[in-house]
């Protein structure tokens, strides 16, 4: 197995939402590739967990899906951010930024910790 870190619990949803926001409607494979690329191929995305996570977001109304054609004319299911998803993303992103900033302060400057 690879020694790449797994995706942390709860962050996958955020990554999916963010990716959909920047790229627009996207199919599952595209999302997976994109997330791996952005992480600089540092993350090992378990595809088996991606699809249940997408389903969960769809059930919660943050994204919606629709069958369409890929660039190679292959039939694929495309996911798209909803209004609720945008709100959700903004809120979650804000919280994460704050969390990471606080953690960064602790980790960057040992003299203050």
């Amino acid at each position, binding site marked *: 197995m690879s020694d790449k870190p797994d995706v942390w619990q709860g962050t996958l949803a955020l990554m999916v939402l963010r990716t959909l926001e920047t790229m627009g409607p996207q199919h*599952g494979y595209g999302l997976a590739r994109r997330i791996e690329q952005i992480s600089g191929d540092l993350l090992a995305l378990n595809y088996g967990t991606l699809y249940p996570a997408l389903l969960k977001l769809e059930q919660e109304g943050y994204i919606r899906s629709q069958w369409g054609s890929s660039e190679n004319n292959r039939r*694929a299911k495309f996911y798209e951010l909803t209004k609720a998803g945008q709100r959700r993303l903004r809120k979650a992103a804000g919280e994460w930024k704050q969390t990471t900033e606080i953690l960064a302060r602790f980790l960057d400057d040992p003299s203050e910790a």
Partner: protein
Amino acid sequence: MNKLRAFWIRLINTLRRAPSEDFADELEAHVAMDAERGIRYGLSPEEARRQALIRFGGIAQAHDAYAGRQGLPWLESVLRDVQYSVQSLVRNRLVTAVAILSIGLGVGSNTTIFSIVSRFVLRPAPVGDPGTLLSLHIMHDGDRCCNQFPWPVFSDLREQATEFSDVAAYFDLIPASVSGGSEPERVWGQGVTPNFFGVAQLRMVMGAGFSDSEERAPVVVLSERLWKRRFNSDKGMIGKTVILSGHPFTVSGVAPAAFHSIDQIINAEFWIPLGMTPELAAGLPPRDSREFHWLSVIGRVRSGLRRKDVAAELGTIADRLAASYPATDRGNHFVFEQAGSLPPFARSAVLLFLSALSIVVLLLLGIAGFNVANLLFAQAIHRQREMAVRLALGATRGRLVRLVLLESLLLGLGGGTLGVLLSLWSTGALSSLRLPAPVPLNLQVSIDGRTLAYTFLLSVLCGLLLGMAPAWTASRPRIAYSLKQETGFAATGGRFVARNLMVIAQVAMAVVLLALTGLFLRSLESASEINIGFRTRGLLLLSVDPRLNGYSPSKISAFLGQLRERAAALPGVDAAVCSDVPFLTGGNRSDGFTILGKAAKDDPSVLADLYMVTPGYFAALGMPGLAGNDFRQGTASGPPVAVINKAFADRLFSGTDPIGRRIEGGGRTYQIIGVVGNAKSRTLGEDTRPILYRSLDQSIADDPSMMGYTLIVHTPSNPAGIAQALRRAVYQLDPTMAVYNLETMDEHVRTAYVLPRVAAMLFGIFGGIGLVLATVGLYGVMTFAVARRTREIGIRMAMGARPAAVLRLVLRRGMALTFTALALGLPAAWVIAKLSSSFLYGIKPHDAVTFTLVPAMLALVALNAAWIPARRAASINPTQALRME
């Protein structure tokens, strides 16, 4: 919100069970796209696909995870179990039907009784914040609870009490006739202090209560029921004028339909300021008197205060009043309870009656429960093989227990549902009963939320308890034996002990149930043999209250005279007389009487019910004259005369001739002119009361009836046939006169029978159900026990036992159980019978007939139940018996 949306979607998916072919396509697309990338890097299509699949990881796991997210896995597993349980219940249709019917009858009886308890004991008054609203009463040392308030005591209390934010008073019952629109109608209302609705925190449907300046203003709050019935739910009713007994009142508010009165029993339909009450109710006590107790009082406690503090302050105030007004207030103290509780004088009787009923229905449920438990137990033994197979195939014992419990839980819930349906019907039937009472009562009983919750809990509890034994048995078969098709525990004795205990408990409960039932049925029997002392056939009653139309006493007298003339002129009528209230109306006026001039302590005195009658009354009601004469026509201005009944004569004159003697009582003197036979005055169950009949024309002026007057007409034909003609006769004299209680004497007396009848009916129904259930249970258990011993009996007979000996063996066992049960049940029945003695008409609580018949009957049933299987066992061919199983 979003979580809820997701849950909802998953729930729907679970229930729909839609398979997700969609996802297979999506995965396929994913793998294909990944493979295309590989091909672009130069791999062969096969190799590219292989690598794509490897990169994806477990396809099957992904499917599982996806499916798990689509639906609700735990719910699916529960649903699967439920489905399986339902199948199993359907497979054993007969057992299921019997079980649900048994539990349904048991739970239904409990639901019905609990709905009564909930209505009369548990339900708080429909006021704002009922927890802090108290009803206050005065109790005099040594007297029975409780008395109402004189006005000055109320106003003293209102001024001095600091624990209450405010205190309000009301006068219980004011009759009034509402005219306008259709036929005039007599309705009842209450006179309240202006702060009444504020203290009660009653939220009006429309408009408002009274303001402090309206103490003597002609304003009225209507009940929503009256507003709907008489005024067509007129939205613009506020500010309009309604005529109550000829007086105009301006409508200021409409009170919610659920509010009948603070005590939840009297059915009031309008409220007027207390200061206006004398306009509608004559003869109210003077406000400045501390002697007349006529006002009911409620107080709103400041929130957060404890009952102890309230009691302490009321005690202080009572002491202070006793010191200031020793003549009237000494020995008085205040008692209180939460407003809307049962009235103190009725509480113990009602609670006792309801407890007796509750015991009966719980016993019923117990008997039904043991029946079903037996049934399930027997079934569990038969299902051991099935369970053993499941265990052998790897099911855990926990899962088996869960399955069996789920089955019995479903049985419990099924029975509960049936029970609710049954009690919907029974409470409807109970609510339609009319009670004999002179005032309008609201005794509506329905299934409320509290009752439903109780029923649900009872059903669940029942289901779980019933499932316990079978679950234990089912989950512990001896696999090896069971698979070989032998019953795993045919020989073990422990379970038979449990079954024996169940039989004993069941029969003991049946003894108690049947003894109580028997007593109440005997009581009804004796009630129907009561000699009421007057005839009921051919009589028609009609009541009017001309006082409500502003008639003076002399005008009332004239009106009633004309009415009698018109009624007597109707075809087929041979007598028309008047009285104030008819017999058996529940309550009546009474006064103490002594022989004139002999009012000393040792002289005989008698407390007698008072009736006003017109000449011919006794003949019309078929009451025998024993001595002297009836009243004569046209004696209104002569000296007051009276006719007494035999009980009165016996009590006061003990054997000497009372005719011509003078008596005094209630501030008046009467000369006795006649003696008539006894009659039941207030209720059927009463001991014979002394009665004094006085001339209506002589008494109406200085002592008018508060309850109106009743015309009694006799016809040899069907009295119901002249009802409309009689009603028309009233309207011809005065079209605004409200007519009420138009009924035949047969109907009237039947109403009086309602209490013993209802009690006997309830006990009869419950007892009957109990007997059937107990009989079925006994047969079942005995048959089953013998069937289990077939092999043993076969061996005994093969060894040379004679059929008679086998018969004895089986019978002895059955009877031993029965007699143990009787020995336990009879003393319990004895005690409970003693407690319920106050409801028994003319029957001693330890009625010999009941206490001989019930055990004998049960012993007979048990003997029968043991006899049939015993006979079968004795006729067994030993070789066949040994080959069985």
